[in-house]
């Protein structure tokens, strides 16, 4: 197995996630795309963990998973709050803070 094949898979998933963040209007779909991005980062961390023969990559991947779980919890609570106030979660309509 080559190092580059795991890194390239991570890059593909990262770019698909970036496209999702840019293209989607629904706030829940944007959060899902962010999960794709975080997963590609984890893949890279574990590949480098094997390459360098060190356990640190595993530890970092676990920390990233925990941060992602916290992020989804708070993010969905915010989406719920926006929906309760606005009856929509389309990100195009949230323009109160526009300069």
């Amino acid at each position, binding site marked *: 197995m080559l190092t580059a094949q795991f890194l390239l898979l991570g890059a593909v998933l990262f770019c*698909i996630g970036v496209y999702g963040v840019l293209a989607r209007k629904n706030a829940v*779909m944007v959060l899902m795309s962010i999960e794709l991005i975080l997963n590609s980062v984890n893949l890279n961390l574990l590949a480098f963990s094997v390459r360098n023969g060190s356990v640190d990559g*595993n530890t970092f991947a*676990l920390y990233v998973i925990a941060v992602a779980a916290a992020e*989804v919890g708070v993010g969905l609570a915010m989406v719920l709050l926006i929906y309760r106030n606005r009856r929509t979660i389309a990100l195009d309509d949230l323009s109160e803070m526009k300069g």
Partner: protein
Amino acid sequence: MLATDLLVAQNIGFGIISLMMIFGALRVVTVSNVVHAALWLVVVLSGAAAQYLLLSAEFVAVTQVLVYVGAVMVLFLFGTMLTRARIGAEGDLNNKNWALGIPVALLMFGVMAWVIIDGFGDEKLIDDPGSMSQVPIQAISDDIFGPYLLPFWALSFLLLAAVIGAIVLARKD
């Protein structure tokens, strides 16, 4: 090159799982139904867990299944159902400038692929495939509770703050 250097079975497994993951990820960002997108995300996350097993990180793979496929997906489905009365397909999931995302993503992938291939090329992941063994969980815990204890504390406080914040935000009053 010796046959043992090729790791044929692992490479075939990697290829199949990668194709599944990329297809699932493309479906996540293109499908016009939020619940279907969440279910395609399950495919991607499970594929990622399988890749972690290929990378001999079994503890992270189990955690991935428990946390992502178990907890986070349930949160997503709850979020979908609490914010959308109807479950069927919706035509307005994309921005009006959604097409701009394609060149941005392609450009980004081009740059990253160039750097990765330039930097790592055909470098082997490990020199001796026979020496690749499972990462002992004891080593991970030694790492977490040794040099990375301070980030672990910070992470505990982050999770506590996230739980309290989520309750405060979602409270009805």
